[in-house]
């Protein structure tokens, strides 16, 4: 197979997806119009917590074009509760999560009434005519206050705390007792960090269209998870699964934000079915920022114990995690994903992690690019810098002292994961070389000495992440409701062309291209002869969708397994056609030939046609090469990398400019370097945005004050630097392609690199920490000593 391997895997193919996307021949959900289609608009609560009194819908019902108006009362019997698939503890507390509020609203932006009309404009006009009496209740917003239960949002639960989840290495037998480690340490660093609330802010606002007119009710939705969505519609709303078809057409970004089963989807589904007409709902950007789930939002208390030489002896992590008003699909599990990553690439002998999940009157949080792992990486990488300062050594040196050496793999960590491979030394060496580390340190020293108004800071982040979510047994042990396998099908068409069906539903990642490369590589067919199908449950019945850097690592391997089955199905037919023994055949570059003869063989395309005709097949052979495979990974994969950031901090204004950003990632074998690099770039942008720009802010009443893109500061091209990226390649040993996953790497690694760089520039003024985002005002105030 070597010839084809050289040709296809690792090749920087430009994307198949692009031709349509660059020319406007797109199928966003909102582009789709069906005959007789109605439009839905939602009245959303302007208040964060209130009892709902009278809702006057008379004027709205009488408004031009209005077909129906629904309130929570109208849908109470059938709406059920939105699903949460991850009860992290046996006694987890979870309030009812209605799609439309019935008696109370619990966050600003929650649906209170719905109008269905002939046009979107008429629906919106009628929404403005609905009058709701809100009986204000005290709002619970601050995470620490909420955890104190002074005011309990759901009296029936008796507390705002949803669950408390603990991991302790002494109990698990994977390490020592952290309290002992802290007591015996030469150096103890204690810090409290805040992971601000972020908004995924995918570019395509969510849109959903339900067509109840066919034998199945079809839902088109801008979702990352058509398979999970179909299952949840069936399980939560009592409509038989086989009566539901879900289609994810072109989906404009997700970043975890579309890894959800949403109120809007449930409402459109219920109402479309009730009215017997296609109904479409497309949110506005403000609705998207208000009501699509948010991410992050944790308070981290960290204690790092070390010996005087910088050797870490223990790590204690205490988290408060803001769930928002209720639990969505994987809300409670997000901080738990971080539990396995706080120990990162380091050998930590004792570890204790505890997390309390807390309700507040804000939109629920859930997965956002990295989901739990960026928070953990931020925590540990900030602490490593703090430890370096405490000990008085270079931050790279403290990391090297503690990280797992490349010859020590496989390595089982204190949080019980087994890292199969890695080479932190190689990635770091390459990164420091590209960065010009000594030169920048020298410039930094000069600027300090000269009292330059612009000070230079250097930030380090040596990260790893657990990718390829996930081995089903591990998910089971964590109480997650589903498995972590993925599915692929290969259809060999009579003309030798290939259709591939993947259960991994993309939304910008480039699956069509990468999957075609894998097929071309494995079957020896031309890249152009492969079509990749996905995102429609009639075509792709089985799948677990796209999130958690899992597509290639799990879905790609499923594809490899299905392709291997095609080859094995073809082998006896090839032997028959060549009149040779099966054992004498070898499959090379798309052809079966008799080993050692060099004679012309028979191509997989020839066999596909022969199978179609079925005139001359071996006895009992099935006239069909099609194959499918479901793959459940044995282990996670562990990409890693070294990210270095140099910031210039204007001490007079507090402005931060990224002067240089270098990252060297190790994602194992690379199928398509162009796509991989693009994933890193985009990830960096989002991680840097967390460090410097973005924050979902609520006022004292619980109103989101950053409910437009004028206030929620997604950076533009002007606000981001040019990145220098490179890769080292340490193949994963846990899968046949040696791949590890790349979707979240940049986001996870970059936030602490940037914040460490900012602090490195201003620590000389006595600054110990700056809350994210490091806005100019916060940086300036910190320098003034106003915010320690």
């Amino acid at each position, binding site marked *: 197979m070597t010839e084809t391997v050289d040709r296809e895997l690792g090749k920087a193919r430009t994307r198949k997806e692009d031709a349509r996307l660059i020319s406007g021949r797109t199928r966003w959900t909102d582009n789709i119009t069906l005959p007789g289609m109605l439009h839905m608009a939602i009245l959303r609560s302007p208040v964060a917590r209130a009892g709902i009194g009278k809702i006057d819908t008379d004027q709205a019902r009488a408004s031009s074009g209005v077909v129906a108006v629904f309130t929570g009362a109208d849908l109470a019997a059938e709406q059920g509760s939105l699903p949460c698939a991850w009860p992290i503890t046996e006694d987890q507390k979870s309030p009812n999560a209605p799609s439309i509020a019935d008696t109370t609203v619990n966050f600003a932006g929650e649906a209170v009434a719905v109008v269905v009309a002939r046009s*979107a*404009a008429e629906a*919106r*006009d009628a929404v*403005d005519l609905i009058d709701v009496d809100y009986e204000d209740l005290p709002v619970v917003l601050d995470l620490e206050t909420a955890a104190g239960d002074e005011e309990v949002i759901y009296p029936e639960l008796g507390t705002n705390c949803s669950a408390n989840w603990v991991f302790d290495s002494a109990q698990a037998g994977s390490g020592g007792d952290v309290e002992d480690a802290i007591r015996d340490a030469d150096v103890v660093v204690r810090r409290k960090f805040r992971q601000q609330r972020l908004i995924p802010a995918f570019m395509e606002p969510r849109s959903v269209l339900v067509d109840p007119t066919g034998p199945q009710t079809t839902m088109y939705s801008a979702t990352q998870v058509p398979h999970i969505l179909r299952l949840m519609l069936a399980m939560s709303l009592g409509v038989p699964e086989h009566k539901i078809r879900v289609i994810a057409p072109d989906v404009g970004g997700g970043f975890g934000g579309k890894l959800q089963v949403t109120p809007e989807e449930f409402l459109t589904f219920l109402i479309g079915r009730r009215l017997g007409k296609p109904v479409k709902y497309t949110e*506005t950007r*403000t609705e998207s920022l208000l009501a699509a789930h948010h991410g992050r939002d944790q308070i981290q208390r960290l204690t790092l114990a070390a010996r005087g030489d910088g050797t870490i002896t223990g790590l204690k992590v205490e988290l408060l995690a803001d769930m928002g008003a209720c639990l969505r699909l994987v809300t409670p599990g997000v901080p738990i994903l971080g539990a396995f990553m706080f120990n990162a690439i380091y050998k930590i002998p004792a570890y204790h992690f505890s997390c309390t999940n807390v309700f507040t009157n804000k939109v629920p949080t859930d997965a956002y690019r990295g989901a739990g792992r960026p928070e953990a990486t931020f925590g540990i990488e900030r602490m490593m810098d703090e430890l370096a300062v405490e000990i008085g050594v270079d931050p790279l040196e403290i990391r090297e002292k503690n990280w797992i050496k490349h010859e020590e793999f496989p390595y089982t960590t204190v949080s019980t994961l087994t890292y199969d491979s890695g080479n932190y030394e190689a990635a770091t060496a390459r990164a420091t070389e590209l960065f010009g580390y000594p030169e920048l340190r020298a410039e930094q020293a000069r600027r300090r000495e000269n009292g330059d108004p612009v000070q230079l800071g250097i930030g380090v982040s040596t990260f790893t992440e657990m990718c390829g979510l996930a081995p089903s047994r591990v998910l089971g042990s964590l109480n997650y409701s589903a498995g972590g396998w993925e599915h692929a099908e290969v259809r060999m068409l009579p003309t030798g062309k290939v259709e591939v069906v993947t259960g991994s539903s993309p939304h910008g990642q480039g699956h069509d291209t990468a999957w075609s490369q894998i097929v071309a590589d494995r079957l020896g067919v031309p890249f152009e002869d492969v079509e990749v199908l996905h995102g429609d449950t009639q075509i792709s019945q089985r799948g677990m969708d796209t999130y958690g850097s899992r597509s290639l690592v799990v879905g790609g391997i499923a594809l490899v397994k299905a392709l291997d089955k095609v080859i094995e199905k073809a082998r006896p037919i090839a032997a028959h056609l060549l009149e040779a023994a099966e054992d004498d055949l070898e499959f090379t570059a798309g052809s079966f030939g008799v080993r050692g003869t060099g004679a012309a063989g028979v191509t997989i395309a020839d066999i596909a046609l022969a199978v179609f005709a079925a005139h001359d097949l071996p006895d009992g052979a099935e006239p069909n090469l099609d194959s499918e495979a479901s793959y459940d990974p044995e282990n996670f994969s562990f990409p890693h990398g070294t990210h270095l950031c140099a910031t210039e901090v204007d001490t*007079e*204004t*507090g*402005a931060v400019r990224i002067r240089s950003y270098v990252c060297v990632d190790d994602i194992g074998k690379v199928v398509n370097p162009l796509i991989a690099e693009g994933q890193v770039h985009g990830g960096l942008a989002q991680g840097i945005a967390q460090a410097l*720009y973005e924050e979902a*802010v609520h006022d004292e009443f619980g109103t989101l*004050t*950053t409910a*437009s*893109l*004028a*206030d929620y*500061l*997604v*950076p*533009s*091209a*002007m*606000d981001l630097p040019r990145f220098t990226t490179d890769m080292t390649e340490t193949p994963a040993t846990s899968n046949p392609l040696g791949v590890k996953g790349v979707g979240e790497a940049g986001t996870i690694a970059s936030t602490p690199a940037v914040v460490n760089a900012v602090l490195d520039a201003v620590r000389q003024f006595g600054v110990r920490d700056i809350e994210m985002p490091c*806005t*100019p*005002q916060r940086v*300036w*105030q910190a320098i003034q000593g106003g915010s320690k």
Partner: protein
Amino acid sequence: MIPAPFDYAAPSTVEEAVTVLADAGEDAKVLGGGQSLMPVLRMRLAAPTTVVDLGRIPELRGIREEADALVIGAMTTHDEVCRAESVRAHAALLAEATHTVADPQIRHRGTFGGSLAHADPAGDLLAPALALDASMTIAGPAGRRTVPAAEFFVDFFTTALAENEVLVEVRVPKHTGWQAHYEKFNRVAQAWSTVAVGAALRMEGGAIAEAKVGLTNMDTVPVRARTVEAALIGRPVTAEAIREAARDAAAGANPGTDANADAAYRTQLARVLTARAVTAAART
């Protein structure tokens, strides 16, 4: 989102516009380039009964040069202002500031007069207009009147324009040969100015002969930094002298507090940005 319904009028003369506005009453809104109004309408933060589009009135468009002034039609786009040689030559500060407004697409549609009439204190053209002693020609039912910039900006989003009046043009005295710079500070490129400072200088023999300095977003209206202007006169262009003169940049201003900056930080920014604006202007 789509705006609430409204009636639409597109008069072809200023007088017709004034009549339409008078007829439409207090719930009418004037549509200039629409770059501030459209988001407001789309978010349904305003729901006028009538929108009066000034885009079809030829008189409101273009820049003409008079003996001692440039006259800029209210409906002249930011892009046209940026490209005009006459603005660069005689009102360089305005050219500099206009270039920083929003983004290219918005500069293609947004208008000079629209920005001034909108009177957002974070808008970048108010302070330069004030600093350059511009005056506004306003048409109303009783005819036309002229209001100096210092009286035009009344409060937060409030100008001397009555509901039935239209801003026709802005007269900017020629500052030929003046050197200028607009120093803008914002959180991201798209964001409104946290604070910005416009400085125009007349240099003589390497020293500052005359200075005009305007501050953006340091109060509910644009602010003229008179103390700085006075302190700069006769000063050589040294870092020390400029910093000294800029120290009281915020004197007389009453900066507000918002998500991006409190009053103390704004005061600091005014000081630093004033020094930078003056320094950059002196170097041009």
